[in-house]
């Protein structure tokens, strides 16, 4: 079954080579004197890698086979296996795509000429990050997995602190580093337990383990902590908002679009080990997922920092994916294959979608920040007039991420809804259908958040001079965005092909479910209807637009200032800003969303100018983790008195040790 036409090189080799190329992408720049040359070379190499890697990954995906290479390395952890199965191949796609797009974007966004000091490191670590993630999904040796994992985490850190002169960037960096390292500690436990179980450092083969022994529960917990922290599942998400907000935008795109997915990949990979996952696991994943989705989007709706909003929406999307996966596992464990199939399809497809529209949005935010020099949406506005192309592409991303037809975001949520409804008839899992209204709520909140985002950034009139003088982005920045937007539209209009794309990965992950559910053809037809209606929708809009434009040609058209409802001196500062837009929502969801507000007291007939500040607060971090650290810190400070510099007490330490050991010995 695994055979490629003669004359073609083995795609797996190509993929590995591509991974290595991306790793080297930044190296020439380190040694070249001329500024920017390295950047251009890096783009070239990343493009080359994408051109090699993506077709190779697709070929492997559709070959539905597992290619394994064993290389002997000089480390005492057994042979190092690299393997690409459909699941890996599927996860390879976004890695190469975003890697290439991001590096191209950087040329315009982070020009070497303007950032001599930081550009080299940025380019180098960006390449390193790409290649580490590519190798990560191929790794089948636990230690090699950990290595690539850590390299990924560390290079992401160095990318994040590119502007380390800024205090908040440093703080975000430290927070991220601490979080990711704690996660890695959990992974150490995870892999060690696996080694203790299997006796080999190679990852267990699919379905080779049983989840029954109690020790497996700790394996699962360790995996959930380790991978969940990276994926940003609540409440392990604390590092995510500040990290995504403070990194350069193409880095945020990479982190949010791909790196979070690596955490999910880990969870997927872990689940493949077991042939009998208990219902509990699915339930845990589902609860964690829906919590992240709801809380994440609720927080997002309160933000007025452009990139923090996007970051929180990443948490939401990860939550949706996790929910879908959890639902799939529930279906798998209870042998209701339709549910398993639909949930998994939704999860995989949403992974693909999110790694398309989230990079699009982050790159877009990069364009905006590049133009206005601020991240605060309350200061923007009216950019749609100044950067029409970017605005259009950004709109595509916004509609997609809201999960609204006819774009791709809707498709994956649609599949998930189908799955939830499918259990309604006399199944033991009937109650999971109650997730549907929750998802609907998530969707509604998403619409709030992104209407606010798009409205306050691109629409209306500029709120400060920077926004007023915003300029259209260059081609190198628009092309990557265009690519992602195109993908979103295509998947949205022809979802059946997307389903075809993910089905190999699906089959390799849950063979029996796919086989038994088998109705993939049925869902093909349903999705076909979706695409039909999507096209119908476009046609209808086009018809109406045509009709209207015909009318407009006949009739007089004037243009005037916006009607101020009788008020004549409407200024830009009177517009609804981002904060005011989400005011109502916050008041409704008070308790979930908290924000520190400073409301000035106005007095007198002519009160002097005052400003009102709303700062949405990161509940988990500020209420749980920071206090915990403070307590630990003071406790340690107390214990540190043991080292008080008094010699004779040091002597006492020594002899006390001697005595205790003596007593112990005899």
């Amino acid at each position: 079954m695994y055979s490629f036409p003669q004359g073609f090189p083995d795609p797996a080799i190509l993929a590995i080579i591509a991974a290595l190329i991306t790793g080297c992408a930044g190296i020439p720049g380190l040694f070249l004197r001329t500024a920017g040359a390295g950047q251009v070379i890096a783009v070239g190499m990343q493009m080359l890698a994408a051109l090699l890697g993506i077709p190779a990954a697709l070929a492997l995906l559709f070959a539905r086979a597992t290619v394994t290479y064993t290389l002997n390395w000089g480390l005492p952890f057994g042979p190092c296996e690299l393997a690409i199965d459909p699941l890996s191949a599927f996860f390879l796609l976004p890695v190469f795509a975003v890697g290439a797009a991001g590096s191209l974007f950087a040329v315009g966004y982070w020009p070497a000429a303007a950032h001599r000091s930081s550009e080299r490191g940025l380019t180098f670590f960006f390449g390193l990050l790409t290649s580490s993630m590519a190798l990560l999904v191929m790794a089948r040796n636990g230690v090699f997995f950990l290595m690539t994992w850590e390299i990924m985490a560390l290079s992401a850190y160095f990318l994040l602190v590119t502007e380390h002169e800024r205090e908040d960037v440093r703080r975000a960096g430290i927070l991220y580093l601490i979080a990711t390292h704690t996660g890695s500690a959990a992974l150490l436990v995870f892999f060690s337990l696996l080694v203790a179980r299997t006796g080999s450092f190679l990852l267990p083969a699919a379905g080779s383990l049983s989840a029954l022994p109690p020790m497996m529960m700790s394996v699962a917990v360790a995996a959930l902590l380790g991978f969940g922290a990276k994926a940003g599942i609540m409440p392990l998400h604390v590092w995510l908002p500040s990290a995504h907000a403070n990194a350069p935008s193409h880095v945020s795109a990479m982190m949010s679009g791909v790196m979070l997915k690596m955490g999910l990949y880990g969870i997927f990979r872990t689940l493949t080990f077991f042939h009998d996952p208990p219902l509990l696991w699915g339930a845990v994943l589902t609860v964690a997922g829906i919590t992240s989705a709801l809380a994440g989007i609720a927080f997002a709706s309160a933000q007025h920092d452009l990139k923090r909003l996007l970051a929180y929406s990443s948490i939401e999307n990860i939550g949706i994916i996790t929910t879908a996966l959890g639902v799939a596992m529930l279906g798998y464990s209870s042998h209701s294959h339709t549910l398993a199939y639909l949930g998994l399809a939704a999860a995989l497809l949403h992974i693909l979608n999110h790694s398309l529209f989230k990079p699009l949005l982050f790159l877009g935010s990069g364009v905006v920040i590049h133009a206005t020099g601020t991240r605060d949406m309350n200061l923007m506005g009216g950019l749609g007039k100044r950067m029409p192309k970017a605005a259009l592409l950004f709109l595509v991303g916004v509609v997609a991420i809201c999960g609204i037809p006819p774009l791709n975001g809707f498709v994956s949520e649609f599949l998930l809804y189908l799955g939830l409804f499918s259990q309604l008839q006399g199944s033991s899992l009937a109650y999971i259908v109650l997730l549907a209204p929750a998802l609907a709520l998530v969707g509604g909140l998403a619409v709030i958040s992104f209407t606010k985002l798009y409205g306050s950034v691109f629409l209306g009139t500029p709120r400060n001079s920077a926004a007023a003088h915003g300029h259209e982005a260059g081609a190198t920045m628009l092309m990557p965005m265009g690519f992602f937007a195109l993908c979103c539209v295509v998947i949205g209009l022809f979802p059946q092909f997307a389903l075809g794309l993910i089905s190999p990965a699906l089959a390799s992950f849950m063979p029996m479910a796919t086989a038994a559910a088998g109705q993939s053809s049925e869902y093909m037809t349903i999705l076909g209807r979706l695409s039909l209606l999507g096209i119908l929708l476009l046609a209808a809009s086009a018809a109406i637009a045509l009709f209207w434009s015909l009318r407009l040609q006949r009739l007089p058209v004037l243009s005037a200032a916006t009607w101020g409802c009788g008020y004549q001196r409407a200024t830009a500062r009177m517009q609804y800003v981002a904060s005011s837009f989400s005011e109502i929502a916050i008041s409704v969801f008070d308790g979930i969303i908290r924000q520190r507000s400073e409301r000035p007291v106005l007095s007198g007939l002519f009160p002097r100018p005052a400003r009102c500040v709303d700062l949405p607060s990161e509940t988990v971090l500020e209420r749980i983790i920071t206090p915990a650290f403070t307590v630990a810190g003071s406790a340690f400070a107390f214990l540190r008195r043991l080292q008080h510099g008094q010699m004779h007490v040091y002597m006492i330490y020594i002899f006390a040790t001697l005595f205790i050991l003596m007593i112990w010995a005899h």
Partner: protein
Amino acid sequence: MISLADQFLVLVLLINFISLGTSRLIFSIRAVAAQGVILGILPGLIHPFSWHLVGITAVIIAAKGFIIPLLLNRAVRSAEIKREVEPFLGYVPTLLLGALFTALSFGFAGKLPLAPEHQNYMFVPASIATLMSGFLILTTRRKAISQVIGYLVLENGIFIFGLLLAEAMPIMVEAGALLDLLVGTFVMGIVINHISREFSSLDTSRLTSLKEE
């Protein structure tokens, strides 16, 4: 002879108590010197005569009995300190602890099997007791001098045990003894002089600037 050796060991123990109990530095230096001399004589009592033995005895008496005390005396004089004021632990409790440790060491030694030829000596308990006294001085005194004294007493304890091995592995014992003397005398002597220069005092309770705040 045997009884003589034991009586000398008792003397050693008494000297321990003296150095534990006294507050006058000069006096405790003399006490340690005396202890050194006794330790120098002891090998002569338990081993048959040999020139090598004489050499050892001479060296030890010279070093432990005269050179070190002289160095310490000079240090004391240069720093103009007479007595150990307010030790971390009072003299009476120190003495009591010393008594307790001596008793314990006798008990401890009783547990351990001895070679027949040493059955009726009290080398082992004496050495442990001396060791402990040294430790007590080290932990209860403030002055750097007293701490060196404590270290020397501790060394003497070890040396006493070494006597049991003297004929089995002479080189070993001598090397150990001499190296300790090296540390005890020269290096510490030098450091002490530096300290008295830096701090114009030998009060180690001033040497507490290096610590965790």
